[in-house]
């Protein structure tokens, strides 16, 4: 029993964070926002050069063979940097699922090389992100997860998140690569991790603003009301993190209760990020209500991911079925069982 991030994990996470802070800047987000496709081959190439697509691909297929715990740490960094390229879906959701299926070595190799992009479609998540541009599609039919090649263009929906590319679902097709709900759980977990990264970024933006913006002759961050708003937000964010890690371990181990923990993680992360968004805009005042500070990119992504891969009602429903019904043993001694 040890509940700790290893030095290696911390080093990897910091490395990704620093790299993204350098290359995936707010300036880049603003530039993407004015581009037609909202996607950039250069950005993708940068992520590939970092080795991100192969993080969870087995070493035999050219990846690093890392775990879901690594995945949630990296997903948080993608959230923190506001990354919109479909790296999380492909590398952190599809790759570990495909690694458990038979006969996907070629695709895994292509993923690790940054040459394949896998879009994800599941009934619990009605819109498909980055379907256009994907080389493959994981979809669900009758409880089975199907893998198919994908090409062509689809009709773009209009998300409030200017960098998000959503499409209506297509008819499921392809060969079976596992159970459908594994997709849902993996994707919800990664969404939760991104949410907590988004929340961290908004916290940092709000804190910086509070330190630098003066009113009444002093930084607004010296006012107790501002301090306490931000402190309240920190508590929610910090207590979502271990829940996500615990869910990652449960899912990696295939624990029977993994779905409950994923739902808990998604709820905690979405609540923290949503509340952080409201706190961040309030801290920024009128400036926060503009498109001129970058906060809105993160806040809108948080709104989007809060509803994606199972909304509050969906995940509370799973908690309900486990906890209120008595199906899950609860109480002291049941933290990890």
């Amino acid at each position, binding site marked *: 029993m040890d509940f700790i991030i290893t030095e290696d994990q911390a080093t990897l996470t910091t490395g990704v964070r620093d790299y993204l802070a350098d290359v995936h800047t707010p300036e880049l987000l603003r530039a993407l926002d004015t581009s037609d496709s909202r996607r950039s081959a250069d950005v993708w190439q940068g992520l590939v050069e970092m080795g991100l697509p192969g993080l969870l691909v087995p070493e035999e297929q050219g990846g690093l063979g890392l775990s879901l715990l690594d995945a949630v740490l990296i997903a948080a960094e993608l959230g923190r940097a506001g990354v919109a390229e479909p790296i999380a879906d492909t590398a952190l959701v599809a790759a570990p699922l495909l690694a458990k299926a038979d006969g996907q070595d070629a695709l895994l190799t292509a993923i690790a090389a940054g040459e394949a992009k896998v879009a994800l479609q599941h009934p619990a998540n009605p819109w498909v992100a980055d379907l256009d541009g994907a080389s493959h599609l994981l979809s669900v039919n009758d409880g089975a997860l199907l893998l198919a090649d994908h090409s062509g263009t689809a009709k773009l929906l209009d998300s409030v998140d200017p960098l998000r590319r959503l499409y209506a679902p297509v008819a499921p097709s392809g060969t079976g690569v596992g159970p459908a709900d594994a997709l849902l759980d993996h994707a919800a977990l990664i969404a939760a991790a991104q949410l907590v990264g988004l929340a961290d970024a908004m916290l940092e933006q709000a804190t910086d603003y509070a330190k630098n913006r003066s009113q009444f002759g002093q930084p*607004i961050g010296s006012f107790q009301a501002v301090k306490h708003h931000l402190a309240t937000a920190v508590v929610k964010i910090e207590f979502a993190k271990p829940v996500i890690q615990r869910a990652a371990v449960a899912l990696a181990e295939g624990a029977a209760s993994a779905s409950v923990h994923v739902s808990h993680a998604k709820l905690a992360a979405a609540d923290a990020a949503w509340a952080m968004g409201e706190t961040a805009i309030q801290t920024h005042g009128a400036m926060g209500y503009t498109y001129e500070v970058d906060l809105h990119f993160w806040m809108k992504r948080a709104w989007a991911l809060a509803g994606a891969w199972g909304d509050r009602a969906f995940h509370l429903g799973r908690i309900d079925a486990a906890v209120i019904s008595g199906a899950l043993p609860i109480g002291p001694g049941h933290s990890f069982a």
Partner: protein
Amino acid sequence: MDLAYTPEQQDFRAEVRAWMEANVPKEPLVTLEREHGYHQHVEWERRLASGNWGMVTWPEAYGGRGLDLIQWLIFEEEYYRTGAPLRVNQNGIFLLGPTVMEFGTDEQKARFLTPMAKGEVIWAQAWSEPNAGSDMAAITSKAIRDGDHYVISGQKTWSSRASFADWGFGLFRTDPDSKRHKGLSFILFDLNAPGVTRRPIRQLHGDPGFAELFFDEVRVPVENRIAGEGEGWNVAMATAGFERGLMLRSPARFQAAAARLVALFREHETKVAPAAREQVMQAWMDAQAYAYNTYAVASKIMAGGHIGAEASLNKIFWSELDRAAHRTAMQLLGASAELRHLDGGALNMWLEGYIFSLSGPIYAGSNEIQRNIIAERLLGLPR
């Protein structure tokens, strides 16, 4: 206390309803924060004025109907009941208008009020400056007297309507040596005057709902000053009182939103979080409570009373109920909440409304400022 409408009030309601039903555009207008939508909304103001509905509480002499606040509330109820467009004229009729009526000269009233009620001149507010937001007394924009003109230099920001409007109002430092609340004057200016530059500012939703204004030696006649030189702060505080007080947010608006929220809940009832049911009921209860309170304040004012620091209670209550109601709607919509257009291509008004609701606790004096006011002025806690 008598909570029954008189026959005259009922007749008035019927009259408003009939006119609205006959005149409210069948198709929703484009948002007033885009140029095309702005002009649609101005056109709607003029249609309203053609029926003498510009501002029913104003004297007939200025294009109103001389009605009382209860009748205004009835007007608002019917206005929102029919889903009539937002009031692009809001800064004029709810903020500047009452200010001119209280502090303006007869000449100023004649000059500004009628075109305002008719929707001929649309007004922007110009309160904030980059370093004077919550702390409005930190204003540095100057208006230096030069004969029978002021020469205005400086900058305003977050000026709502200023991307497209005709005229603006705000505080300027007429005594360049003054500090804080002193030496400020309340001045009206033509947004198309030489030396005024507008830089539209995109808001969260992407449209330029406010603008930054740059003043480069803009010459403004002295007769555009409301009240005495250096008395601007008190005039503005009165204006802010109107804004936070009774009129800025009509209860009908929230009652309409609550009713729509109940309908949305019914659509989604089979797949909602348990608390959503209670949140929806709370939205209805809060909108009702706000309506009762507004009727009570209106009654008090009609009986000769005033609204002071209590306006801060209103500001907090409506802004937080509005945000909570729209947050609930976003949760009910789940994965569709992020879509700017819902089935059939209609604008996702819940998303737009949630975004707008986030401005509520910020503008017209942030809720932090309001809580300070309540604590210090109503409860007497030390500053």
